Structures are given as C-alpha cells and as structure tokens.
C-alpha cells in the first residue's frame, strides 16, 4: 500500500504539481495555491470595503452590501459556484474561463466572511478612538486609515490566515466546474490508474493536510504572539477586539 503510493507519487508528481503544463493549462498544486493566494489577496481589500459599507450611515451603501453578506453567508459555496458558472455567461453573454469564475466566487464568499471580522474589529474599538480622531481634525477616511483600521486589522491577522486555510480547502470545489487544480489532477491520475482510488485520494488528502496544517500552525503562533503583545500594550478594548478573530482562527481547523 505504502509502496503503491510511493510509486504513484513517483510517476505522477509533476502532474500533481503543475497539471498538464506546459502542454495544457497550469494545474495541480501550483494552480491551487495561485487560486487561493489570489482569492485571499483580493478578498482582503474587498472585505474592508464591505465592512466600511456595512457601518456606513448611507443606506444606499449599507443595505445592498448587508443583503449580499447575508445571502453569501447563508448559501453553500457550491451553490454560489454553480450560479456563477451557469448564470454569468447567460447574463453577460461572455465565455468566462472557469478559473476566473472560481476566483470571483471565492473572493465574494471569503470577502463576505472576512468583512464580518473586520466589522467586529472596528465596532469593538468603541467610539472613543473615532471621537479622538475627529476632535483632532482627521477626516472619516483618514481616521479609518491611520487609526481605526490599523488596530482592527492587526487583530485580524490570525483570522486572515485561517481564512486562507479555508480558501485552500474551498478551491477543491472548483472540481465541479473543471478548474484544473490539485483535486482535478488527482482525479486524472485516478482515471489513468483505475484500480487504486484509495491510494490516489489518500495522497491528495495528505498533501492538503500538510499545507493547511502548516498554515494553521503559523496562525496559532502568530495569534499567541499578538495576544501577548496586546496584553502588554493595549487596554481592555484591544483584548476584546482580539477575542473574536482569535476564536474564529481556532474554530477553522
């Protein structure tokens, strides 16, 4: 069994790593990581904009985004992927590559989740910080940028990492719309071998586990460091702000 797995790995490691590339599109683990990294890199600023919209005093901004966040959080990701896959080409008439469909869906999905963390981080700072900023003459956006967000986001670092972990796991769903990722590569391997599905998918699981575990490990260490640093620095408010993302981080895996 172990021998089978080593043999499979020796024969197919390149396919698992980069898919059909350079004879076909980039796939495999490389594509999984690129897709995850791009999603989180885009979801992060999107989540800040969504959070700002949700605490905005303008209803025209607040309501649509609130609805979007609620719907996104209340619907399975697979459903969102299928909607994007079938509806977007129907509505726009354009032929969107499955990678882009998957990326967009993940950005909105993870952006909605992260925006709740950002919002909680902002709200838990209390009014005092914004009052002080205003009293000194800072504009609303200036206060957000230099005073509120740096505090809220610093506390969020662990939950950004854990969102990264769940994004990596979520990319496997791209399989249903033929995104050539690691899962897709593994199923190609399985189709060629036909007789060893258990071994193939065990290799797949081990790879995912190793990656996700490493990032979670990193997130937990960071989280502890931040807790310690904040305990030395901030008052009770900072500790409260931290409690929430920290909880999310430990719940993800």
């Amino acid at each position, binding site marked *: 069994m172990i021998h089978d797995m080593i043999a499979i790995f020796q024969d197919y490691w390149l396919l698992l790593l980069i898919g059909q590339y350079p004879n076909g599109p980039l796939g495999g683990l490389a594509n999984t990581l690129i897709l995850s990294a791009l999603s989180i890199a885009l979801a992060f600023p999107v989540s800040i904009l969504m959070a700002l919209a949700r605490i905005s005093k303008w209803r025209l901004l607040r309501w649509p985004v609130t609805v979007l966040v609620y719907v996104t959080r209340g619907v399975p990701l697979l459903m969102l992927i299928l909607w994007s896959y079938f509806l977007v080409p129907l509505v726009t008439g354009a032929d969107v590559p499955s990678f882009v469909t998957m990326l967009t869906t993940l950005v909105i999905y993870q952006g909605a989740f992260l925006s709740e963390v950002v919002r909680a981080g902002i709200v838990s700072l209390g009014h*005092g910080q914004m009052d002080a900023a205003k009293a*000194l003459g800072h504009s609303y956006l200036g206060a957000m940028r230099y005073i509120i967000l740096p505090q809220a986001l610093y506390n969020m670092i662990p939950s950004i990492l854990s969102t990264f972990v769940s994004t990596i796991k979520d990319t496997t769903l791209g399989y249903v719309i033929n995104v050539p990722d690691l899962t897709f590569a593994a199923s190609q391997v399985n189709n060629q071998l036909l007789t060893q599905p258990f071994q193939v998918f065990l290799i797949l699981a081990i790879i995912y586990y190793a990656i996700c575990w490493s990032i979670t490990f990193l997130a937990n260490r960071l989280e502890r460091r931040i807790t310690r640093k904040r305990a030395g*620095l901030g008052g009770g408010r900072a500790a409260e702000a931290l409690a929430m993302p920290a909880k999310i981080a430990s719940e993800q895996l």
Partner: protein
Amino acid sequence: MTGTASPQDPTAIRISNVSKTYGTYQVLKEIDAEVARGEVVVVCGPSGSGKSTLIRTINRLEEINSGSILFDGQNIHAPMKTSALNQLRSRIGFVFQSFNLFPHLSVVENVSMSPIRVKGVPAHKAHDKALLLLDRVGLADKAFSYPGQLSGGQQQRVAIARALAMEPPVMLFDEPTSALDPEMVGEVLAVMKSLAAEGMTMLCVTHEMGFARDVADRIWFIDAGRILEMATPEEFFSNPKHPRAQRFLADLRH
C-alpha cells in the same frame, strides 16, 4: 448671528440659544454662554446634567437641535463641507475623560501624527515638536513607550500634549481627572494650571473644586440642561445663589 469677527474679537466661544434632545429627552435647554479669549471656565454640576453633551457640541462631536455656537466668528453647527468642519475641529483641543490615546502608536507618534496627517507638517518637525511637548508635560522619557505601558495620569498628560500639538487657541476638557487614581490627579491638574498660566483659553468640566478655586476665572453651574449660575469662584464658593448650586456644593464637601 452671522459672525465675521476679526481675531481681535474678545469672545473665543459664543454659545447662543443651544438646545438638544435625545429622542424626547431634552439634555440642553436654551443655553447661552460665552468664553472670552484667555479665560478659564470651569463647568460643574451633578452627574447627568448635560456637561459632557454641552462640551461635545462645541467641537460638534454632538449635533444640536437649535441655536448656534460661534468659534472665531464661525458657526460650528452651520451646514458646511466636512473638510471645513475638520479644519475647525483641528483648532479646538479636546481632552477626554478616558484619554482615548491611540494604542497602536508610540507616545511620540500619538502626539505627532495629527500635525503630520491633518496639517501637513513635515514629519521631522512634528516629531521634534512632539518631543518638546512631551518634555513640557514631564514625559520626555516616555516618548517611545506605548500608551498601554503608561499609568492613567501619564496617559492623560500625553493626551493633553497630543491636543496641544495642533496648536489650538482653545482647549476643552471633559472630566480629565475623573478616571484617575487619586494620587495621579495632581500631575494632570498641574499641567492644566501651567496651560492656564500661559493664557490658554480653557473650558473644563471638572469636579476638582481646588482647581476651580485657584485657576478658574468663572464657574458655570449646570443642572438638568440649564446653566443655573455663572459666577467667579469667590462668589460661587462663598455665596452660591441658586438653591441647587448650594446643595451641589454641600454634597461635594461631604
């Protein structure tokens, strides 16, 4: 009440007929009052009487329902661009009961960041100025500490330095010593006294009657949203006219 007052106008703040309600509850009732340039006014009154609300309307942290508040001849509550409001606010120093320092910035950054970001002062100048101000409030050695590493009294002195860094002609204080342990009250009051001695225009909500007696030019006594008495400290402490003021002072002495 349209003011085009010159800088020679002897009035720093003119509060005219200001009323404010929270829902159906009227917190401020037709307040009329003035603070002259260089004057130190102490505002006192029972808890919940509207002192914080009043002082926060002066830099428009709270909106009002009617009336006007002139600062340097400009109505702070007139409809205006937010940039104009920010500009006005930057010239009114405000010190909070709970300090509200920025915990993610070092002490010197707390003091220098607003001149840099709001007034466009070059960073090295703002930094040097911040060090001078910290020296002035007796905290030169804490410049590179973080607020969480300071005592309450030290934090409040940093907060005063932070407000002074914007070079405001007027300083507002909302119970600056109420959140402090008793042994730290003195160090904050000493800084406020030195400010007053230099001729700063100050409006201080405080229950420190020693400070009021020594430093204030006038005392406003507020109860239930009305200024019931405006008097010099001598008059107020020796011969308060309003029965509520008499009761308030009697309660304080116990």
